[in-house]
């Protein structure tokens, strides 16, 4: 039977309680094309794809696979229909080899002929140009190799349609290129590929068509050849916005934080920071780049007094000219010295804020110890909460709403707002725009730039290299807990940074 559309969705709606995650969505995926599903966080991309992979079932509407109406009740049904999804978080068993993971759960003979299977899998990988050693154990693999295993697993099961959820989030620029090459090979072999993403550049580079979602609604599908970054942004956000980040030259940089040969170990005794040295200056933004888990978290936490350091020292140079040794101090001791150090951690609701508490009580976290006496002062924090809501345009029913109920962007505004309110001299931020929509992201960049202008030393850990290169003055790259380079963000290229944070660089330094 001839068919043109591998998948057709007709009027699909999915609700969670009163929240409409997908509203009346109709779209098609052609045979042998790469379709990007583009949308901001919370626009319903993943929910839509989860209905194809059988994790959710639609409330209304129908799904047609190869022209025939299908009911997908479970991931098993989805596999049977030739749909395979590669999730953001890999579902692999570390102690097994790649081949063992790939055949896991498939029907087969009583006696496994591993040699034959390995050969089969190797041949399959070669067809599409994957670099894969089927006998390698998962725990010995890098993130991109694990992703390869996930993709081959789906292909081995005979998938005709592959869905990839944010596949490049964990990859270096070089690894991303490699992934794109095999995806193009797969397209040539007649597979349909759906990529969920919010990165515009990748959409433009890779896909044939782009389907855009906004707030659960389907906006439209365009041919990539006819689209541009600004036209896609407009579809995604619903209004025209400027994508430039202003970057002023640092004014009279002054030394604020100096780290000298710091090493940290985690609970298992593995070194997570190895002999790290750097200097951060007031009035500049220092970007920290690296693959997730390269020691960024420990770097910031050791400055904030939340991570014990093994050797080396961290020095703070106050604007008045005194020098304090921060290493070996706890966070409470640092604030007792009136060193104004603000820290916006990666885990906003689990560390920076208390999700179940309202805005006022979250403002109190930093200030309640200042007031004298037995009782807690809620008047000042309440005032501060109201000021932040007004100045940063936080969308909330009121200052008595638990912060957990706010959207990601508003949570970040509340957290950053509180930290900035203490007039810091050093501002540490980790992944400040993760999970935020474009408008909120630009508000945050603007706030960081404002702090820089005020002479604050901003240290910013980020994941999107394009943004780091536009926002920061200098970039330091971490790989496997070591500093692999520091460079001027105005002149270095993305590819150069990618090389510094790459797997080979990391392995050369003796990590995995």
């Amino acid at each position, binding site marked *: 039977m001839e068919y043109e559309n591998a998948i057709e969705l007709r009027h699909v709606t999915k609700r*969670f309680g009163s929240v409409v995650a997908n509203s009346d969505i109709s779209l098609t995926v052609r045979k042998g094309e790469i379709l990007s599903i583009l949308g901001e966080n919370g626009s319903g991309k993943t929910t839509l794809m989860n209905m194809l992979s059988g994790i959710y079932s639609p409330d209304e509407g129908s799904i047609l696979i190869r022209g025939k109406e299908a009911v997908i*009740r479970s991931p098993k049904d989805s596999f049977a229909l030739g749909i395979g999804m590669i999730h953001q978080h890999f579902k692999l068993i570390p102690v097994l080899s790649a081949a063992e993971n790939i055949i896991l759960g498939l029907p087969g003979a009583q006696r496994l002929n591993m040699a034959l299977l390995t050969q089969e899998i190797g041949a399959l990988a070669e067809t599409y140009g994957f670099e894969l050693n089927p006998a390698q154990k998962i725990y010995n693999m890098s993130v991109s190799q694990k992703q390869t295993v996930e993709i081959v697993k789906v292909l081995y099961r005979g998938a005709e349609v592959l869905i990839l959820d944010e596949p490049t989030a964990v990859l270096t620029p070089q690894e991303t290129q490699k992934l794109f090459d095999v995806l193009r090979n797969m397209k040539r072999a007649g597979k349909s590929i759906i990529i969920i993403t919010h990165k515009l550049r990748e959409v433009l580079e890779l896909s044939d068509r782009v389907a855009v979602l906004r707030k659960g609604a389907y906006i439209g599908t365009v041919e990539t050849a006819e689209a541009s970054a600004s036209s896609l942004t407009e579809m995604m956000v619903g209004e025209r916005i400027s994508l430039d980040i202003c970057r002023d030259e640092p004014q009279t940089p002054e030394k604020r934080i100096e780290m000298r040969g710091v090493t940290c170990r985690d609970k298992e005794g593995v070194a997570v920071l190895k002999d790290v040295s750097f200097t951060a200056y007031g009035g500049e933004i220092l970007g920290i780049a690296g693959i997730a888990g390269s020691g960024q978290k420990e770097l910031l936490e050791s400055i904030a007094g939340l991570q014990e350091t093994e050797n080396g020292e961290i020095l703070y140079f106050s604007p008045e000219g005194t020098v304090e040794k921060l290493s070996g101090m706890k966070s409470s001791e640092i604030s007792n010295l009136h060193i104004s150090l603000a820290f916006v951690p990666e885990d906003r609701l689990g560390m920076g804020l208390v999700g179940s508490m309202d805005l006022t009580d979250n403002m109190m976290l930093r200030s309640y110890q200042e007031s004298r006496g037995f009782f807690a002062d809620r008047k000042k924090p309440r005032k501060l909460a109201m000021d932040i809501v007004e100045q940063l345009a936080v969308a909330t029913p009121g200052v008595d709403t638990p912060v957990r109920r706010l959207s990601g962007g508003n949570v970040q505004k509340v957290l950053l707002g509180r930290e900035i309110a203490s007039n810091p001299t050093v501002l540490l931020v980790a992944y400040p725009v993760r999970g935020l929509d474009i408008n909120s992201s630009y508000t945050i960049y603007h706030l960081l730039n404002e702090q820089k202008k005020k002479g604050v030393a901003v240290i910013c850990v980020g994941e999107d290299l394009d943004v780091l290169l536009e926002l920061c003055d200098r970039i330091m790259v971490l790989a496997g807990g070591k500093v692999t380079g520091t460079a001027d963000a105005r002149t270095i290229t993305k590819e150069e940074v990618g090389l510094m944070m790459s797997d080979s660089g990391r392995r050369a330094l003796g990590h995995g």
Partner: protein
Amino acid sequence: MAEETTQTAGGPFFRVVKRSGISTPRAWLIRLAAVCCGLIVCALIIVAITKQNPLSVYAGIIDGAVGTNRRLWVTIRESLVLLIIAVGLTPAFKMRFWNIGAEGQVLMGGMAAAALMIYLGNTMPNWLLLMLILLASMAAGMIWGLMPAVFKACYGTNETLFTLMLNYVAIQIVNFCIVFWENPSGSNTVGIINSSTSKGWLPELFGLTYGWNVVIVMAVTLLMYIYMKHSKQGYEISVVGESQNTAKYVGINIKKVIIRTMMISGAICGLAGAIIVSGGSHTISTSTGGGRGFTAIIVAWMSKFNPLVMLLVSAFLVFMQKGAIQIASQYGLNENASDIITGILLFFLIGSEFFINYKLELRGTKRGTK
């Protein structure tokens, strides 16, 4: 062939949907409905077992709980005991410290009260003795709460097992003391302490036998409410309970908070022991706690730590218990019948919380929102 199919394609027959919010009267309506359902199920069981008219059985429950002035006051006294233990547990549970050792803390408090009544009964004026009793029982409960807290804070031991095991230690210590205190000798019970002099007994207040019980318990409840809601320490407890990471991030000394909070929690449970011994039974036995240390956990959680609701819940539970004891004797059922009735009602009440947070939606139900 290409029909426009807009109805649901497959999927389960009904699904559970989280409510985004519910009005207070509606929530109470659901709880009321749950109690009614519970009473109906109880009635069916009563009819099946005893062939009695369930209405007269329910009348028996009311009669048993508040039928006479004396019964009413016993019900009030017991409710107050349950309330103060639940209040004592509140800070620990708010801190996510699973203190299931209230039983032992109450028992140690009661034992300290009994010891002072026996050994110091005739050496000092009653008011001074009573002050000492209250302080000593608080100290005893505090020590019993302090031990698991120190081990949790310093070595990360599991507080659930630790507090549970300390209950049995407390029971054995009381068993040991009864050997010295038994009266009359050979009875293996302590009997009513100071029955002729009433030394160490909480006196009448405003002509009410249990006047002091009311005053002490209400004062402690009010103070705890203020402490949790308006003090800095109460705020620290919430932060530590909600997220230890956040507590560490803002520089709260988590060990100190755990130890301090459990001292308070244990002390109030110990005070409850003094109220049971000095203000009620005037004796001590291994069953002085009477399982109330555990029942109070249900009270605290069902009331979501709201003191006013706690008062209602403990009154309800005691009401059912006392009433059930009455019908057990009246209709020749054994005492476990009361537990069955209370159990069924609790099942429905706790189950109703599910319907307050979630609702069921049938397949194909469409709502007006577009």
